[in-house]
């Protein structure tokens, strides 16, 4: 029984009957908001999926249907050859580009962040602030200079142009450095004292300890690179090097309309699926990474 002390008359009972009502109201509100959020996140994916099972006429029809009249799975088979280049090639290109980009990004950023977080060297803080200041530049400003660089390197219309330029990212360095700062120096001192080399410390101690941060940052960047259209559009001409977004864009016909909407939807499902699978695989670390990027000792 919940009670409070009353100055005049001793103990008295508060309005206990109000508490469950208040609790139910708060919970209802909380779950309503979460449900709306969840539905609005899932709805586009659902719409995409059912569109791939519909005929183009049904998709464009005046009456909206939440489930196709005659679900037709053929679009998923035809989508395989519908894209130019074919879907397997496009997916392979995107996996190669986004995977290499993400690995390089994590490797380079974690090495840079480790040096900036845990080594004291002349000019270290200045270097850090220079890196940070590049975060202030809007990406569009560096677009033309970056293309010029690719031209000078002879990397235009190659995988290198898709992988290398983005693989150094100030924001990632910043996030990882902030995470590494929270790891006590003693953790590294102990490794050093017990015979670990400097690279050994990075490989055996730093990287495993940063797993949640690396997973979160890795996923964000993988998705970002997978979905990037502008940069591949500028540097890639050869259709064999097309990434998913470029290939999807190729579905627009010369009149600016999208024929075979069910096929387009099926292609998009194929293109989106790897991202969803990747998110599920890394979800354990992701939640830790997103909810609080700081080291916990024990």
């Amino acid at each position, binding site marked *: 029984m919940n009670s409070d002390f009353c100055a005049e008359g001793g103990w008295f009972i508060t309005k206990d009957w109000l508490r469950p009502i208040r609790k139910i109201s708060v919970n209802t509100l909380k779950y309503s908001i979460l449900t709306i959020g969840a539905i609005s996140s899932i709805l586009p994916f659902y719409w995409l999926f059912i569109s791939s099972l519909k005929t183009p006429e049904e998709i464009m029809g005046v009456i909206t249907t939440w489930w196709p009249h005659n679900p037709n799975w053929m679009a998923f088979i035809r989508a395989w050859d519908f894209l130019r280049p074919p879907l397997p090639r496009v997916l392979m290109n995107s996996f190669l580009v986004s995977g290499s980009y993400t690995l390089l990004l994590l490797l380079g950023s974690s090495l840079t962040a480790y040096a900036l977080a845990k080594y004291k060297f002349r000019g270290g803080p200045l270097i850090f602030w220079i890196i940070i200041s590049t975060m202030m530049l809007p990406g569009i400003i560096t677009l033309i200079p970056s293309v010029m660089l690719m031209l000078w390197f002879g990397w235009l219309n190659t995988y290198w142009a898709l992988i290398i330029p983005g693989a150094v990212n100030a924001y990632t360095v910043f996030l990882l450095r902030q995470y590494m700062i929270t790891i*006590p120096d*003693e*953790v590294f*001192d*102990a*490794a*050093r*004292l*017990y*015979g*670990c080399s400097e690279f*050994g410390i990075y490989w055996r*101690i730093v990287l*495993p*300890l940063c*797993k949640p941060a690396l997973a979160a940052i890795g996923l964000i960047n993988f998705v970002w690179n997978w979905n990037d259209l502008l940069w591949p559009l500028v540097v890639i001409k050869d259709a064999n090097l097309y990434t998913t977004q470029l290939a999807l864009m190729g579905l627009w016909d010369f009149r600016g309309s999208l024929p075979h909407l069910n096929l387009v939807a099926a292609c998009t499902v194929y293109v989106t699926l790897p991202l969803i699978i990747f998110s599920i695989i890394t979800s354990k670390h992701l939640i830790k990474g997103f909810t609080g990027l700081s080291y*916990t*000792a*024990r």
Partner: protein
Amino acid sequence: MVEVRLEKLTKVFGKNTVAVDNVNLHVKDKEFIVLLGPSGCGKTTTLRCIAGLETPTSGNIYIGDRLVNDVSEKDRDVAMVFQTFALWPHMKVKDNIAFPLKMRKVPKDDIRKRLKETAELLKMSHLLDRVPGQLSGGEAQRVALGRAIIRDPKVFLLDEPLANLDAKLRVHMRVEVRKLQEKLGVTTICVTHDQVEAMAMADRIAVMHQGKIRQLGTALDLYDKPEDLFVAGFMGSPPMNFIDCTYEEEKKALISEVFSLEIPKNLTKEIKEHATSSEIILGVRPQDISLHEKQMPNSISTEVYAMEPLGSEAIIDLKLGDMIIKAVTPPTYRTRPGDTAWIVFDMNRIHILDKKTEKAIV
């Protein structure tokens, strides 16, 4: 025989932050020595210099007969237990402990054997498959000790090894640590700010202050014969009471603002011979003050200010003029704030220090 010698060891951070100032120390083989001092006194920096985690600005460090100034930390053959234990949270306990051996490329069978021996020695065989996150403070401490002893180091360095444990466990573990050191017979240097811990564990204690070793000796030496004001005030709980006095040769007495205290002849002789002036500090441990309800010979009148009954004893705060001094009495002693208490100092145990040099005279 593994001795550790520090010769004029100095460590300066930045341009003028002197952390360790000309420290000389000789740790004998199999000795357990404690560096004791308040935060920022340079004790951990000294330890880190011995470990090789800090480079000394000047001075020499010898481990055995070998000058190790330029020897890397991993080749010094020392093991260190850190204050936070510094376990690697992503590794299982067995991997944490076996890490030093793996780094030395010890054959797997040997690693397994020594891991088993170490786990049995520290009674933690059941913990080997856990990760540090699943350990209590005491267990984590044992793992840190295990990691330190598994490769039979020449020297143990313990940096506040008990600081992160709760009070009860600390009392238990300080005995365990001492027993372990005796069993292994490894020269050990331990750092702590807790004088009780230091007195309980050490063969000898080096009291540090402002980067210097102020006194080196056994626990009883430091307690009974402090050489200066800092050591006198640092050792003992509650700390020693200090009262500014003037020595009057004619009266053979110490004169303060509120009392005149006759002192024995042997003390007057010492003061006469060693004091640089008549300004001296009288130091009395709370345990060396007796309280009386009535006036006694050579007693001083005080007013009871507060009482702290601690069960085994009581600490009485007494108002002596403008200052408060502490006295320890048996728990049965009854008094109340505001009462008058006549105090008598045990003249055989008082300390007299030179106010100018802050060095002990008696």
